[in-house]
């Protein structure tokens, strides 16, 4: 174990048995279900995740966190901790060398608590020691004198006349337009004449809905290794979603220029939004620079619940109207998101919630408002579905209630109001690519229903594994009622509201041992989604090679943007393609210079790279790449951006805010033990339009994963925060439950590919849409089984039994 365990590059080659090239299609190129290049390392246990990193002489970092949700820190005494044998450093706010705050959108988050703690679990001090237990025991000896302060826990307490202002003297860009300093951001959307539309409505349905706080619950806990460098800088190996955003926030905290903070992506054990914000990044670097030793930090599951932001819990009020013939007249809504103690990405979540509040429906008159609060609850930010999940739960419940009021089939009612290409959103933006909302609903509805009473076996005994309650043996069929529910949703793809959303790719083509090899280097965070697989496929398609080497993602190359917002295949995939095109042009230039005089086709034909050769589009081989390159390597680094967007107007919400939309529909079949309030989801079918499936296997995997997280929100997942103390009550996998394989049903998936002409290869970001409609579909099915209104998720047995 003499050498550090750190990430290395991934060679990718095609496995034996890969089919021959078809005309105009590179083997292992886009559209094929090529296998993950990191798959072998992941199944042998050799893949180096952030928590697996190891360095000779390394120390262990530990974080002391606040036991209070809101308190003034009167004093901190670290002498006892410093005197502990084996302890190499103890840091508090007073020891910070430079910037003391950071943040994704603006810097309101203290690196270490600065006189006040604003949420339960906020970092107060850091310890570095020889062994994690030494660090823990030392941290226990840090004496912090807290003076508890009144807590802000909801809208009423945040906006009360005597409410404590959690961030006095705000200077962020939203401070000027918010109605109260405890509101992070507020976004109205006004479209059409709501009064006139309301007057036209034959039926008006209003409802209040609530979404609990969901956790990303990625399995690989926050971790990383910071290694101090001889030049005074630091090398950080880290699990994150966006290396360059981390860098932009860390460097000022360390007081170092960005070039002295070199970041490399280590193995990431899932993310789902929970790694967009910094966790231990700056902390490990501070300890490494202070001690001159490598420092590893690894949160355990308990700490992980305090170490990252969660999905915003929300309260939503909706009013919809419709005419008797089943056409929506108007929608008015108010969405209150709890942002918790710090801003994180709350402003962008507000923008999504407001702009997508009407769902995938054509509604001429809309009056929507979304806002995020500052409270003393845990900070909330990005999680898969990002503001669109909460709205979808509410508007889909409304659709079912409207359909019932009009005595229409819920799918039929949705289809009558479904948007399609050319529709105008409440923001005034035209949906300028396929929007097959009605078709997706048709497809899930057309799938055969799973057989009834599957728990009954031939011998007349019940297989409890197929019943609500499962192995716990709570029913043998008694009280069990089936229900079916539908839902559909709309999610934006990519960063919105005028954000310069670009990515960078460096592609190198050279001949090694007689074989052309492409090397792709980006800073894209592979978090499990399969971006690495797709990059190799794009390079094969564009450059006609089979061997592609993927360099480790790091900050030696330009930013790739975040692995979030369903954007990576679109934007970094687009950048890889763009760089490949430039490489190809350069290769053809070289070819023309070297061989142009020998064959007229060099000048006249469309040329492609295929099978390691330059060929005409008719298939005539002009030269091998080895001959063209003659030992030279072509190496290009380029940025690529999608179409620009613009901010929403702060009063009307009008604006070309989004780049692309993604749609999915679900049908849920559930069986509910109506007496005990236990739910078994029997089947959860999804249809999603993906534009173009670059890797069909990975696409289906994304849809499965998003669907299952939506199921979790529907029936079990919630971080429970005490309403009086604002303390987290269930920070463990014993009490924060995520679906097991026995909770997850068969998940049939129907993938539609309607190309978006504006996007690379016509693709549509695929990562999030299935997370939206899964939750409301499951709850609709439970409503169908029980007849209960169920306005809150997760649905608990208490809600189903009136207890």
């Amino acid at each position: 174990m003499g050498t550090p365990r750190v990430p290395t590059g991934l060679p990718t080659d095609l496995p034996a048995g890969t089919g021959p090239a078809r005309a105009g299609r590179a083997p292992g190129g886009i559209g094929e279900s090529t296998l993950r290049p990191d798959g072998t390392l992941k199944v042998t246990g050799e893949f180096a995740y952030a928590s697996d990193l190891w360095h000779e002489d390394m120390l262990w970092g530990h974080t002391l966190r606040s036991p209070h949700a809101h308190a003034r820190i009167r004093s901190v005494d670290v002498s006892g901790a410093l005197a502990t044998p084996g302890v190499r450093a103890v840091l508090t706010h007073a020891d910070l060398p430079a910037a003391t705050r950071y943040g994704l959108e603006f810097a309101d988050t203290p690196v270490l608590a600065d006189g006040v703690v604003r949420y339960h679990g906020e970092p107060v001090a850091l310890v570095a020691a020889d062994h994690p237990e030494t660090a823990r025991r030392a941290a226990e000896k840090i004496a912090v004198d807290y003076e508890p302060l009144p807590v802000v826990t909801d809208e009423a307490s945040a906006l009360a006349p005597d409410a404590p202002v959690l961030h006095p003297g705000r200077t962020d860009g939203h401070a000027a337009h918010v109605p109260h300093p405890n509101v992070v951001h507020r976004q109205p959307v006004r479209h059409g004449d709501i009064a006139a539309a309301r007057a036209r409505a034959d039926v008006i349905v209003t409802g209040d809905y609530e979404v609990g706080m969901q956790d990303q619950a990625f399995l690989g806990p926050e971790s990383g290794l910071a290694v101090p460098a001889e030049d005074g800088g630091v090398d950080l190996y880290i699990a994150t979603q966006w290396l360059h955003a981390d860098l932009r926030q860390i460097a000022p905290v360390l007081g170092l220029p960005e070039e002295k903070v070199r970041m490399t992506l280590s193995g990431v054990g899932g993310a789902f939004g929970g790694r967009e914000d910094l966790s231990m990044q700056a902390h490990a670097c501070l300890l490494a620079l202070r001690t001159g030793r490598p420092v590893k930090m690894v949160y355990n599951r308990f700490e992980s619940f305090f170490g990252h932001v969660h999905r915003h819990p929300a309260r939503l009020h909706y009013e919809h109207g419709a005419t008797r013939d089943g056409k929506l007249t108007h929608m008015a809504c108010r969405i209150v998101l709890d942002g918790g103690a710090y801003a994180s990405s709350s402003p962008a979540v507000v923008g999504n919630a407001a702009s997508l509040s009407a769902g995938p429906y054509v509604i001429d008159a809309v009056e929507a408002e979304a806002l995020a609060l500052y409270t003393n609850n845990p900070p909330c930010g990005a999680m898969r579905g990002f503001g669109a999940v909460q709205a979808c739960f509410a508007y889909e419940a409304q659709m079912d209630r409207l359909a019932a009021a009009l005595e229409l089939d819920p799918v039929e009612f949705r289809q009558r109001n479904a948007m399609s290409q050319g529709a105008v959103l409440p923001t005034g933006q035209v949906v300028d690519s396929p929007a097959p909302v009605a078709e997706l609903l048709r497809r899930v509805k057309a799938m055969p229903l799973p057989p009834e009473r599957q728990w009954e076996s031939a011998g007349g005994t019940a297989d409890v594994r197929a019943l609500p309650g499962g192995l716990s043996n709570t029913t043998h069929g008694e009280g069990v009622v089936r229900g079916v529910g539908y839902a559909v949703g709309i999610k934006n793809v990519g960063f919105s509201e005028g954000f310069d959303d670009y990515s960078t790719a460096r592609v190198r083509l050279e001949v090694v041992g007689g074989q052309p090899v492409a090397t792709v280097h980006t800073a894209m965070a592979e978090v499990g989604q399969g971006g690495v697989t797709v990059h190799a496929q794009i390079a094969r398609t564009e450059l006609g090679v089979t061997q592609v080497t993927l360099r480790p993602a790091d900050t030696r190359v330009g930013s790739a943007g975040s692995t979030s917002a369903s954007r990576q295949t679109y934007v970094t995939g687009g950048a890889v393609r763009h760089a490949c095109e430039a490489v190809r042009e350069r290769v053809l230039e070289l070819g023309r210079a070297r061989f142009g005089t020998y064959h007229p086709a060099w000048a006249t034909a469309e040329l492609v790279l295929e099978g390691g050769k330059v060929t005409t589009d008719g298939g005539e081989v002009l030269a091998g790449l080895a001959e063209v390159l003659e030992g030279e390597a072509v190496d290009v680094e380029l940025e690529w951006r999608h179409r620009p967007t613009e901010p929403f107007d702060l009063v009307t919400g009008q604006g070309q805010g989004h780049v692309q939309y993604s749609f999915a529909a679900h049908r849920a079949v559930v069986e509910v033990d109506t007496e005990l309030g236990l739910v078994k989801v029997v089947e959860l079918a999804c249809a999603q339009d993906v534009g173009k499936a670059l890797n069909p296997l990975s696409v289906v995997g994304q849809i499965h994963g998003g669907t299952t997280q939506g199921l979790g929100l529907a029936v079990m997942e919630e971080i429970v925060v005490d309403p009086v103390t604002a303390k987290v009550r269930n920070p463990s996998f014993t009490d924060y439950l995520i679906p097991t394989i026995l909770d997850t049903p068969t998940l049939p998936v129907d993938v539609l590919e309607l190309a978006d002409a504006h996007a690379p290869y016509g693709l549509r970001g695929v990562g999030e849409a299935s997370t939206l409609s899964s939750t409301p579909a499951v709850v609709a099915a439970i409503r169908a089984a029980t007849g209960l209104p169920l306005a809150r998720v997760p649905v608990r047995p208490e809600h189903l039994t009136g207890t």
Partner: protein
Amino acid sequence: MRVNVTVNGRLREADDVWEGESLLYVLRERLGLPGSKNACEQGECGSCTVRLDGELVCACLVAAGQAEGREVVTVEGLAELAARRAGGSAPAGEERGEEGPPGAGLSPVQRAFVDAGAVQCGFCTPGLLVAADDLLARVPDPSDADIREALSGNLCRCTGYEKILDAVRLAAARAGETV
């Protein structure tokens, strides 16, 4: 304290082990075997599943001292275990990536996880592999309900389990073909 434990067929020794350390910590931090994962350290996720004297256990809940003198098989030893079961010695193509095709040194269940797309972030994968390998060794042709029950102690957050079921079915089917 000192702990002697046979891991993947080799006698290993760890010194200066703190008495509260788990077998998982010893494997990961002292023996250079980080394949078993530290996702929850409370026995709820199965990511650290290993065989201890042949039984599936969560390594996070075994005190290091309890492993003294015992035999442990981790994900790093699965290929060798499969080869031994099949009557061979070491798996072929040990030097992955250098010679031989990639993945030649994989056990059948490892191969099936890669082929079926059962791996996304991969953090749950080592524990699932050890559990699935144990299931297939006991029940060569498991029903879906058997697979679900056997893997109910292993959480996955990425895949929705569909491809994991596919992988176990695939491994079982391939084993059936070769018999």
